[in-house]
């Protein structure tokens, strides 16, 4: 099977098909959803979407890392990252289809 990368356009297209929104409004609604999730994460809140998964912002401390190519030690600054924990349903769906 040929692997494909879906983009905003594919999801907007699905909204147009399933919900009947105009292409313009589909794109706008998708953007709004992504913005709402991003803003909650930036505010330090986790976002829990049942049957999909949970996004959680995490604080990482400063640590000493190494450039894997050169082996030179370098400080990795303290930073915030997002962790995503997929729901049980999502994991099951992905495994069911891969077995075919």
């Amino acid at each position, binding site marked *: 099977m040929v692997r494909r990368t879906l983009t905003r356009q594919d999801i907007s297209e699905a*909204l147009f098909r399933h919900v009947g929104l105009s292409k313009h409004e589909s794109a706008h609604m*998708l953007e709004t959803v*992504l913005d709402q999730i991003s803003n909650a994460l930036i505010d330090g809140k986790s976002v829990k979407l049942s049957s*999909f998964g949970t*996004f959680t912002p995490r604080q990482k401390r400063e640590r000493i890392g190494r450039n894997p190519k050169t082996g030179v030690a370098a400080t990795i600054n303290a930073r915030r990252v*997002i962790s995503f924990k997929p729901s049980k349903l999502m994991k099951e769906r992905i495994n069911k289809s891969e077995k075919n």
Partner: protein
Amino acid sequence: MIKSDLIRKLAEDNPHLYYRDVEKIVGTIFDEIIIALENGNRVELRGFGAFSTKDRKARRARNPKTGSDVDVNQKTVPFFKCGKGLRQKLNEA
């Protein structure tokens, strides 16, 4: 924030849409992402992040409670990589 909070906020900001349509919009977006991953595809939402899958090999693990060996089958797990735009905004404050 949970899914119903997200739906309520979107419904408030878009009074021209029915509540049930907003529910359908949110449902469709996340379902499309899962369908793409089910089909072995990836989903790239620039500025937000990308969803993909990773294959995990079969391995012999241990039940931490009893210490007995357990065989874990080969499996595929979903993976999310935060996008550049979101990563920068997270670290601006």
